[in-house]
């Protein structure tokens, strides 16, 4: 773990392509869709970088029994809703797709990591400088374009939005162009998807 890490939770299950985090964070701290996270791998010598593609909240029998009854707007249930949301903190399952990894020498690689994170490893949100480095070359989008199990185009849009926000205003047009060229190259066989994606990226 690194200084001032914002911890998300622990690895619940993992394979080489993706992993799931169990988290008990209160609502404001739950990472958002598309957030970049870091998982230690290879005895913490390296770090997998991934992107959140699903956030699942499941009720237990206790929660289910009150869910049909309570009304968020009704003050009668105010304390109980606060208890369930803020105190009881049912585990949230956060699914992450692996985009690349940082090796022991600190170099960033795009594509599958050498190994998945081990169970119960603690996962943290990536720092802005990590996101900047990872997103420098557009190849970080490669895993998303190849994956059929995640909402890839929404993730691409979220990733590019974050990458642009971290860059100075003057560099953004060039960065957007670089991303567009990469996508055009990779999606040459799928012009409908490319057109839709590029139009959506224009608004970012």
């Amino acid at each position, binding site marked *: 773990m690194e200084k001032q890490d914002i911890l998300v939770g622990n690895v619940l299950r993992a394979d080489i392509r993706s992993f799931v985090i169990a988290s008990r964070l209160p609502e404001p701290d739950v990472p958002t869709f598309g957030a970049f996270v870091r998982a230690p791998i290879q005895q913490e010598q390296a770090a997998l970088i991934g992107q959140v593609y699903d956030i699942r909240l499941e009720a237990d029998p206790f929660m289910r029994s009150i869910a049909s009854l309570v009304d968020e707007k009704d*003050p*009668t249930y*105010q*304390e*109980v809703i606060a*208890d369930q949301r803020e*105190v009881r903190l049912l585990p949230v399952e956060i699914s992450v797709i692996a985009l690349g990894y940082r090796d022991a020498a600190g170099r960033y690689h795009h594509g599958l990591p050498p190994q998945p994170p081990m169970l119960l490893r603690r996962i943290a949100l990536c720092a802005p400088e990590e996101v900047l480095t990872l997103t420098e070359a557009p190849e970080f989008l490669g895993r998303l374009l190849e994956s059929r199990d995640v909402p890839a185009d929404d993730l691409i849009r979220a990733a590019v939005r974050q990458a642009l926000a971290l860059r100075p205003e003057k560099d953004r047009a060039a960065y957007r162009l670089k991303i567009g060229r990469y996508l055009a190259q990779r999606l040459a066989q799928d012009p409908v998807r490319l057109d839709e994606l590029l139009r959506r990226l224009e608004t970012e």
Partner: protein
Amino acid sequence: MLHIKELRKALEGLSAQVQVQGQERPEAAHQALIALQQAPSPAVLRRRARAATPDWDGATPVEELPLAQVLTADPQPPPGTIALGVDGSQILPDRHAPVPYYVLQVGCLLFRYDGTPPQPDGYAELHYEPGELYDEHDGLVTPRQIGLQRLVLEMDYLAQKVAAARARYPQAEAIYAFSDGPLLWSAYGEEGRAVQQLFERYGKALCAIQQAGGVPVGYVERPSGAPLLKLLSLPPTAEEPAPPGSPITLPPNLRDADVMACHLPRGGRTPWLQRHTPANRQHKAHGQGIAFCYLNAGTEYPVIARVELPLWALAHAPTVFSVLNHQNALLGGYPYLLMRAHELAVITSEDKAQLERAIFSQLWQHRQLARPSEKARYKATLAQRKL
């Protein structure tokens, strides 16, 4: 492996018995209901109880209200009401374990009716000293003894939490302190200095709650016993005019709760009653005599609970039952804060395994190796066997 085939005949007997009781109970409950509705005044009932044999352990009315009267409370307590719920659990000692020990744990939820999130809390004790593990006859402490210790710990903890809440919220009218189970001491008559010491601690905890401005409330879901039916079955005294019919005789397996399920509407409760038992006399000696009533806590079907309060606290009944109405409505018949206290108190098998790993690790740091008994070792192996 359970030899379930061997139990087939007994299972048939069990279901036949349930069927017979199911047929007999409504009729018996109906008879008892008529007796309840025709019951004489509380003064007459008390006179009958005084004329009963000294070992009679029924209940008598506390107030002058008709016995069949149904009382109700507001659906929600006043804003600012403060309620605490407490429950406990334990790990029992195992003489085959590597190291003998037992654990008591208490869970507690502070619920304030002011829109803020409730506050969870808890406490655990690990007992391992020989003096705690073995009784005066060198026998391993029994589940019953541990159950009593847990009960006392729950009440002690509740007293601490009431005092803390009182210090933090000095303006609160009262701190309503709910525990899952009866307030009336259940071990009266059990021998042993340890039991007597536990009762002393229990009585002190009740007094501490009172002194801190708390109101202890015992909540017993699905209560057994028939103290009210015992009252209804008492014969008239010689001074009473002859009753119109013959005195009722009630079947032995009928409980008060069966009758209350036919009598009480949703949210309705009976007037207060008090048990005529040696345990309640012992409570009264500490200034903590206990009263009880029956409540229909169910929302969709009758769920009968026995609610216990010290006699000194009966004036707090309107708020106690408005808290219960609100809390019970959330889970369909059981108080939310007690369910949460249970959740905070419960020790799962994973928790126990984690504790045992911590014990092994601690021992290993001191170069001590503890082994389970051979029986426990083989039992663990058999438990892992795949069928």
